[in-house]
């Protein structure tokens, strides 16, 4: 029996090549997109799961509201890790990371810049799964000035991996003895360091203050310990350790602080949630976003549904062709369940072929998808352990889903009716089919509007006046490497033809350094007088180099000796001061940890607000102080020959410091990098929307063909009676176009609401969806649908009526 089904299915598919192509190609396209999204989702969900104790590892966070500003940090005070281990019986171990920037590592006479460097406690090797290839966790990172490196770095500097006992020279002067070589950290890790330096080396790690947050801290719970119990003790822990400091510096207790609406709160993030669900200040790398996982998963399901709907629609539309077979089989004794089984077999067979094509297509397009998604996914043997069962599941699930309606629909035919030809119009009574076409175009229009909204927002971001000019600014990184020659370097660069200005500071609006601090409106450091914000050290060339504008007052000046105690505030800071302070007034800042020495600063200027955070956030208070920061040299150029200027700058750098690596970026590219994830989502959405439309149109193309075939005789009679091609095309197209219009009416308001609510509202600065977006999406959908249908309609309208009437 089964063989008979396969045989019939195969021959039926072969006989209806067009139908088979549409179904197989549409399904394959849908499945290929689905598979790519499955790769993406599995990859995103797989972060940090290489750690064998992942279910017991948590990162501690600090949520702070203070001085009118609130933020969520992935860092906590230095002494917390030790306190957790000694005071919490549930905690088995705890370890800290602290990054202080890049290091130059000596290789022969050259110094090579290494960015993936961190100080770390030795306990990281007991918490995380970081297998050693040389040395062991027993000795690693225990003593000051010791290091653990990964295999890549070992090979890079020594050409081999058995290098325990060797020494690395960092920043020309610091020697670190290698105490271990570990395997490279897997790609799916929220941190990927190459070089670990012993925390013991870092003086800051021995700090006892609980009011400074600089250490990423992880704890390993004992087996069976409850995280809720641990969390419930955090409040006491903070009170116990920070009360004295609060009293000393701010003259208040924790409860006084909280009464005024402020707080310091610890929370935890499970290790496996960090990549997708954490977006705090001082994350150890660029994390993903769970929203994208949801969005892409929804798109995958929608596209698969569109492809399945094609199958259902085309199968039921051509039911007239299969009806007689159903009738005959029933007359010959086939039960309905046999027929259901037969049609499901057919559907699964098509899905199997489509899945095989999809698997190959997905495999071939994976490099391109990686490029779009910013990933490095590959199909490994390990991946096959989940991929093969997934493919089998897809074949059975999609096969049954796509085949279920035709199977029950076709098997329900009454044999007498079909054998007497009373069911000639498979296309008639197609309410469900119409609903499914509406559903397909609903999704397509939804995706078009969604994609246009994303692109519109990205365009808005690109064109928004940010309050500074990011074009034609070169950022020469790590200017501090030049030591006391940094200022000389700056002056020489300023003299170069094509260079209009240069400013020495690592604090740039598009990234680089950040420094959150508190300043007071009165010398009495009371919370009521506090202003919390970014405090950046800049020089007198900063504002003109960045193209920033003053709203009031003046810029810093080298000629004014008093400017070392001057401040320029942004408009948001002035607003927050709420009239308590303004131009020419004074602000106060503690100059030592004990808050005994007080600095008095005069506000000499107010800079117009400029965006230095993501446009998702409002501009926050910013205070510019006049001084020396050598983080980077920002160079404004005014020539088309940027390459030439860059070559000259590099030459100057090499003259001053021949052994140090030269690195730079363009400020506009740094800005674009902030929105890279949005740009990736935008590109992927465009691709997926295109596929969704292609698949929906394939279905429409097939349906139009069957509609034309079903109305062959009618077309013939109408032509004999004098109907022209236009009227025939209109007649055949209007039924479908009507469905597309219904889809527009349903999809447009929903897509508008959804994108506004779940995408645009996450931006403080946004371009709301405008009426033309809906018009473009709607007219695009109608046009695409019309062109698709017209192909079949015109073909039908041009047929000689004699032929169609004779065939009847």
């Amino acid at each position: 029996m089964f063989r008979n089904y396969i045989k019939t299915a195969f021959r039926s598919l072969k006989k209806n090549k067009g139908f088979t192509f549409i179904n197989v190609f549409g399904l394959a396209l849908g499945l290929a997109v689905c598979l790519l999204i499955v790769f993406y989702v599995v990859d995103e969900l797989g972060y940090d799961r290489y750690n064998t104790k992942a279910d017991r590892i948590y990162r501690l966070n600090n949520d702070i509201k203070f001085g009118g500003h609130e933020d969520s940090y992935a860092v906590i005070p230095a002494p917390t890790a030790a306190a957790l281990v000694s005071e919490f019986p549930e905690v088995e171990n705890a370890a800290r990371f602290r990054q202080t920037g890049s290091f130059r590592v000596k290789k022969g006479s050259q110094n090579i810049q290494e960015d993936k460097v961190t100080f770390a406690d030795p306990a990281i090797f007991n918490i995380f799964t970081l297998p050693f290839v040389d040395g062991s966790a027993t000795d690693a990172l225990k003593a000051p000035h010791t290091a653990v490196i990964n295999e890549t770095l070992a090979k890079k500097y020594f050409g081999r991996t058995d290098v325990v006992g060797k020494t690395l020279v960092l920043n020309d002067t610091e020697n670190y003895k290698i105490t271990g070589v570990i395997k490279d950290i897997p790609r799916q890790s929220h941190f990927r360091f190459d070089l670990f330096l012993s925390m013991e080396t870092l003086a800051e790690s021995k700090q006892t203050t609980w009011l400074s947050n600089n250490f990423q801290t992880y704890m390993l719970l004992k087996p069976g310990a409850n995280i809720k119990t641990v969390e419930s003790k955090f409040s006491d822990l903070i009170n116990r350790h920070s009360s004295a400091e609060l009293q000393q510096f701010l003259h208040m207790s924790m409860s006084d602080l909280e009464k005024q609406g402020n707080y310091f709160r610890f929370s935890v993030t499970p290790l496996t949630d960090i990549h997708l669900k954490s977006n705090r200040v001082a994350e150890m790398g660029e994390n993903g976003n769970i929203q994208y996982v949801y969005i892409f998963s929804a798109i995958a399901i929608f596209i698969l549904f569109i492809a399945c709907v094609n199958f259902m629609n085309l199968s039921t539309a051509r039911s007239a062709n299969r009806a007689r077979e159903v009738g005959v089989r029933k007359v010959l004794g086939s039960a309905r369940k046999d027929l259901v089984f037969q049609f499901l077999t057919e559907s699964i067979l098509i899905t199997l072929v489509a899945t095989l094509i999809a698997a190959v297509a997905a495999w071939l397009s994976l490099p391109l998808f990686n490029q779009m998604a910013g990933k490095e996914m590959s199909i490994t043997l390990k991946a096959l352990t989940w991929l093969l069962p997934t493919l089998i599941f897809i074949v059975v699930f999609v096969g049954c889903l796509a085949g279920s309606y035709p199977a029950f629909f076709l098997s329900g035919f009454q044999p007498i009716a079909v054998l007497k030809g009373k069911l000639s119009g498979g296309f008639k009574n197609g309410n469900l089919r119409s609903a499914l076409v509406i559903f397909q175009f609903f999704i397509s229009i939804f995706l078009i509007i969604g994609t246009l909204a994303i692109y519109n927002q990205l365009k808005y971001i690109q064109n928004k006046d940010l309050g500074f000019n990011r074009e034609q600014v070169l950022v020469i990184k790590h200017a501090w490497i030049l030591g006391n020659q940094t200022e000389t370097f700056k002056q020489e660069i300023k003299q170069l033809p094509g260079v209009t200005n240069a400013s020495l500071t690592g604090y740039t609006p598009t990234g680089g350094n950040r420094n959150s601090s508190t300043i007071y409106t009165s010398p009495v450091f009371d919370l009521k007088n506090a202003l919390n914000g970014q405090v950046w050290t800049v020089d007198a060339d900063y504002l003109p180099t960045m193209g920033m504008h003053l709203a009031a007052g003046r810029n810093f000046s080298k000629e004014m000796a008093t400017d070392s105690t001057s401040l320029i505030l942004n408009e948001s800071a002035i607003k927050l001061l709420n009239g308590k302070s303004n131009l020419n007034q004074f602000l106060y800042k503690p100059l030592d940890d004990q808050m005994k020495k007080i600095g008095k600063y005069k506000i000499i200027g107010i800079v117009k607000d400029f965006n230095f955070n993501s446009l998702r956030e409002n501009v926050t208070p910013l205070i510019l102080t006049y001084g020396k920061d050598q983080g980077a040299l920002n160079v404004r150029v005014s020539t088309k020959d940027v390459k030439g200027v860059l070559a000259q700058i590099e030459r100057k750098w090499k003259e001053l410091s021949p052994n140090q690596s030269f690195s730079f970026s363009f400020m506009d590219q740094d800005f674009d990098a902030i929105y890279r994830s949005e740009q990736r989502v935008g590109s992927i959405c465009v691709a997926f929307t295109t596929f969704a439309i292609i698949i929906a149109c394939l279905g429409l193309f097939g349906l139009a063909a069957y509609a034309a075939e079903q109305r062959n005789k009618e077309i013939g009679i109408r032509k004999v009676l004098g109907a022209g091609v236009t009227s025939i095309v209109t007649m055949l197209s209007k039924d479908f176009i009507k469905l597309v219009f219904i889809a527009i009416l349903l999809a447009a308001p929903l897509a508008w609401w959804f994108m506004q609510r779940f995408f645009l509202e996450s931006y403080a600065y946004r371009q709301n969806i405008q009426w033309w977006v809906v018009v473009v999406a709607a007219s695009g959908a109608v046009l695409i649908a019309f062109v698709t249908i017209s192909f079949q309609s015109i073909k039908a309208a041009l047929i000689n009526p004699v032929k169609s009437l004779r065939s009847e």
Partner: protein
Amino acid sequence: MEKYYRTEEVETIALNKLSMEVKEGEFVAIMGPSGCGKSTLLNILGMLDDPDAGSYLFNGTEVANVGERKRADLRKHNIGFVFQSFNLIDELTVYENVELPLIYTGVASSDRVKRVEEVLEKMQIMHRRNHYPQQLSGGQQQRVAIARAVVNKPKLILADEPTGNLDSSNGNEVMELLTDLNEQGTTIIMVTHSEHDARYSHRIIRLLDGQTVMENIMI
């Protein structure tokens, strides 16, 4: 038996208290003008449809209004169908079309080969066993349809205008085949418009407006 067809506004009587008996081994022809209820009667006799009222005793068993599964079971073991438009499955070869009823009745594969070949030989269509229906003439297709109808050795063959789509020569051949089958013991009920074909039968039942108006015994 009574059978009505209803639409929202009109009720049409297809069979109006019709009563008849067909004995085992008989060859009965049913005739009448279009719309007189011939096909409705044949569908009910073939258990493809139910009467709205009355009784249908098949081989002594009441089959009116029994469930679909039971009817399908009775049908596949006892009744063979021959249609005017042949109703062969285009995707299956001659051999596979004839084999189909045996698959549904669960006949073992080796038996099927034997029985299909036997019946194809008998219908003189063996040389076309691997051809598809569209590669055959009308007469050949109807022979395949008859082969398919008899391969399960049914007690009853229901033929719905079996020569309606054939020329006179092929039509005569088909009628000869049916007569042979009847002579070998198979009961045949045939709906026809052709007086010529009806003469092959033992008895002609003439219908009008869903009722029997005349019965002719053929000598």
